[in-house]
C-alpha cells in the first residue's frame, strides 16, 4: 500500500512513540505529540502501538492511494472526508486506489494521526522512525513530507492481520463494524492536571496561588518543542541559578522573565530553568491539541495519583491491544 501526498497541510511528519535511548547524547524523545490519538489509530488496525503514523497539523491536506488502502485515524486536528463522506475516527476503513483522502478543517485541536495497516515504512534512525526536524533525523529523510512524496506501509506484517482486513472489506464494504473508543476526556480540556515541580518552592506564595487559580493562554510561540503559556508571570523568591539537569516532556519551566514554557515531544534534553510543575502523563495528549489562544487552568494532583493514572491507562491500552489481536 502506497500513497502520494498531494497537499501536506501546515506540517506532516512521520512519528512513532519516540527515540528513548539517545537522550544522554542530547537527542530528544520526539515521537507523536498526542500519544493517545496515535495509539488509537494504530489499535483500530491491530498494529503494534509502536507503529509509525503520519502526524498532520490542522487540515488542508490531501493524498491518494497508488493502490487500495486500509487506514484508520484519530485526533482533534481535522476530519477526514472520502468522496464527501466524513470518516469516523478510531475505525478501520478502506479507500480505493486513486480516490482522494481529504484531511479537512475544522476540528477543535491541532493534530491528527493517520495509521496504515502494518505501519508506515521509513528507515529507523537511532532506533526510531520519529522525525526530529531540528537535526534532520528520522521519518522521510529527516524532513517534513511535501507535495509529491510517496510513502508506503511495511510490507511484512502480521499475515493474519492482513487476511482479516482483506476479508472484512470484501464485497464493497469499506468501514469496519468495530472501533476503538476514546479514553481521553476531551471535555475537560481546559483543565490540565499537574504535580508540583522540584523548584516550585522557589516562587512567591502569591505566584503559586495564581498558578492554580488564574488561567493561562497558549501563546503563538508553540510548536513540537514547547508551548508558551501567557498570563501572570511567576515571581521568584530564590534567585540562585539552577544547574542544568535532564529535562523531559511535560515539564513547565519558568524562564528568566517569569513567563512559562511547557516542554513537549521535541523539547531539549537538558535545561536550567526552575521547574514549577509537571503535567501528568495522561493529560499530555490534551496539551498536544491545545491551540494558540486556548485558555487552560492547572489543577494539582498528587504524584501518587499521577502514577496510578499512568499505570491504569497503560494497562487499558494493553488490554485493548490484546482484545483486537483476538480478532485475527
Amino acid at each position, binding site marked *: 500500500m502506497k500513497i502520494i501526498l498531494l497537499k501536506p497541510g501546515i506540517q506532516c511528519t512521520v512519528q512513532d512513540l519516540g527515540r528513548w535511548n539517545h537522550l544522554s547524547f542530547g537527542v530528544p524523545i520526539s515521537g507523536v505529540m498526542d500519544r493517545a490519538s496515535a495509539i488509537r489509530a494504530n489499535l483500530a488496525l491491530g498494529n503494534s502501538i509502536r507503529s509509525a503514523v503520519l502526524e498532520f497539523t490542522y487540515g488542508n491536506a490531501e493524498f491518494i492511494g497508488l493502490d487500495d488502502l486500509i487506514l484508520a485515524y484519530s485526533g482533534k486536528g481535522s476530519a477526514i472526508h472520502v468522496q464527501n463522506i466524513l470518516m469516523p475516527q478510531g475505525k478501520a476503513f478502506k479507500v480505493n486506489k486513486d480516490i482522494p483522502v481529504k484531511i479537512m478543517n475544522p476540528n477543535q485541536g491541532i493534530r491528527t494521526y493517520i495509521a496504515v495497516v502494518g505501519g508506515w515504512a521509513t528507515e529507523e534512525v537511532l532506533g526510531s522512525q520519529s522525525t526530529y526536524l531540528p*537535526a534532520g533525523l528520522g521519518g522521510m529523510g529527516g524532513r517534513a513530507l511535501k507535495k509529491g512524496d510517496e510513502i508506503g506501509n511495511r510490507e511484512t506484517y502480521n499475515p493474519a492481520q492482513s487476511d482479516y482486513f482483506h476479508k472484512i472489506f470484501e464485497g464493497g464494504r469499506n468501514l469496519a463494524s468495530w472501533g476503538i473508543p476514546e479514553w481521553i476526556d476531551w471535555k475537560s480540556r481546559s483543565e490540565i492536571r499537574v504535580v508540583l515541580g522540584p523548584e516550585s518552592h522557589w516562587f512567591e506564595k502569591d505566584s503559586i496561588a495564581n498558578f492554580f487559580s488564574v488561567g493561562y493562554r497558549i501563546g503563538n510561540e508553540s510548536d513540537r518543542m514547547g508551548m508558551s503559556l501567557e498570563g501572570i508571570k511567576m515571581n521568584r523568591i530564590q534567585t540562585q541559578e539552577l544547574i542544568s539537569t535532564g529535562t523531559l516532556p511535560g515539564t513547565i519551566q519558568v524562564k528568566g522573565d517569569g513567563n512559562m514554557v511547557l516542554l513537549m515531544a521535541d523539547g531539549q534534553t537538558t535545561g536550567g530553568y526552575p521547574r514549577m510543575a509537571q503535567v501528568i502523563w495522561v493529560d499530555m495528549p490534551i496539551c498536544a491539541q491545545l491551540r494558540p489562544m486556548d485558555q487552560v487552568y492547572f489543577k494539582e494532583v498528587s504524584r501518587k495519583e499521577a502514577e496510578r493514572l499512568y499505570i491504569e491507562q497503560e494497562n487499558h491500552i494493553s488490554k485493548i491491544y490484546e482484545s483486537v489481536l483476538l480478532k485475527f
Partner: protein
Amino acid sequence: MESPARIYPINEYSLTVEFGNVINEENHFEVEKLDLLLKQKPFNGFIHAIPAYTSLCIVFDPVQVKSKWGSPFNGVFESLKNYIQELIKIPLNYQKEFRQTKTIPVFYGDEMGPDMDFLCHKTALSPSEIIQIHSQARYKVFMMGFIPGFAYLGGMDLRLEVPRKEVPRKKVKPGSVGIAGVQTGIYPLESPGGWQIIGRTPLKMFEAFRSPATYLQAGDWVEFRPIDALEFQSLSQSNS
C-alpha cells in the same frame, strides 16, 4: 557512609539523583559512577539515564517496574528510590582516569573563529596566547544537551571567561568551538547559538548513522590540538 544524594521525581517515568549543587569533577564522578552501575545492573524497566553536571536523570517504564518488582513494593518512585539509595553504596572500582581522552583538532581564528577579536579585546590576550591557553587544558565532558551531540566542557582556564553574545547568531557552523562564561563547547550541527566562536574542528561531532552517534560522551576527557588550514582541509576530506 551517609549518601549525600538527593533523589526526587521528575514525572511518572523519570527521577533525578542529585549529588550536591556545585559543579566540580568530584560531583560529576558520582554521576558517572551511578550511570555505569545502572548500565551494569539495570533494574527491570530501566530505559535510559541522562548525565548532567551534578545529577543523573533516570528514565524507566513504570508498568514494567511495577510488574517485575519483588517485595516490598510501595509505589514505583518509592521502590526505585530505595533501590538507588542502596545501589549508590556499592563500591565500584572506577577511576576518573579510566575514561578516554579524546583529542579534537581545531583551526583557531580567521573566518572559522569570528569572535577571536572579541575575545582578544575582552581578555587583553593575543590570539596566540588564547590558542595556547585553550589548547593546553584538559577538559571534562560534563553533559550533552541543547542539540544532539552538543558537549558541555568544564575545566577551562578562567582567563578565557567571556559572556555570551548579546544577540545569538542565527546560524553557527557545525564543528564551531565556542566559549560561554567558564564553559567551552563544540556545535555539532548548524544551529542558532550565542557562544563566542574561536575556532572550528573538521571532525564530525554527530552522525546519526554512526555508532555511537556522537564523537563525545559525558565523562570523556577532551584536549584541543591547534591545526593549520592545510590539515583542516585534509581532515575534512578524510572525514566525509
